[in-house]
């Protein structure tokens, strides 16, 4: 099989990933942040290192500002359902992933609205203008998670 579904999950995983996962499972596979024994502390430290690197990579103010979630859909739902309240408006692109559109559609019942800005593949100025025009006084969020399918 020629695997081309890397946007879903990468395959094969890089050797460094396989090595790190094997080491975690065989050497310190304890529950982090719950216990005081050495394996739990080690697991906590490894997660913290990852959190710290993610913070530096994304320019977060602190490792405390990094939240690990189950997957992108989970993360998007946390943002949408955590940030938005009745009367809020969201701008999305006209090429959004279901992970954005489905929860937003459901949130209409809670009085949250959204508008789709057209993406012009060949003209980025037109795309920007489209997003600008979609903004309203009550726009709280602009979400862009382009569907790669």
């Amino acid at each position: 099989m020629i695997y081309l579904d890397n946007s879903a999950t990468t395959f094969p995983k890089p050797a460094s990933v396989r090595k790190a996962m094997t080491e975690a499972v065989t050497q310190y596979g304890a529950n982090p942040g719950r216990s005081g024994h050495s394996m739990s502390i080690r697991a906590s430290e490894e997660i913290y290192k990852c959190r710290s690197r993610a913070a530096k990579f994304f320019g977060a103010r602190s490792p405390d500002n990094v939240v690990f979630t189950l997957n992108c859909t989970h993360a998007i739902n946390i943002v949408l359902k955590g940030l938005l309240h009745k009367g809020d408006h969201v701008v999305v692109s006209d090429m959004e992933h279901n992970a954005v559109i489905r929860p937003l559609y459901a949130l209409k019942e809670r009085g949250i609205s959204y508008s789709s800005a057209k993406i012009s593949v060949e003209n980025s100025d037109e795309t920007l203008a489209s997003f600008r025009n979609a903004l309203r006084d009550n726009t709280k969020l602009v979400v862009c998670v382009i569907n790669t399918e």
Partner: protein
Amino acid sequence: MESKRTIKFNSVTQALHAQEILAGKAIRSKLVRTPKLRSESGCGYTLVVNGDITKALDIIRSSGIRTAGD
């Protein structure tokens, strides 16, 4: 555990962040689970500081890290 050299945190992330900050200022510390009897909020972690605890607290608080009870 000698209480005068310890700093409590509500999460392991805050404790590890504090430990990292202190290490950058050449203050060593050990991470341990907060003993249950003395914990006010349940699952917490404590840094046992090898050095001036007042200085360590100042460094941690000025870095914006909250300690338990803050």
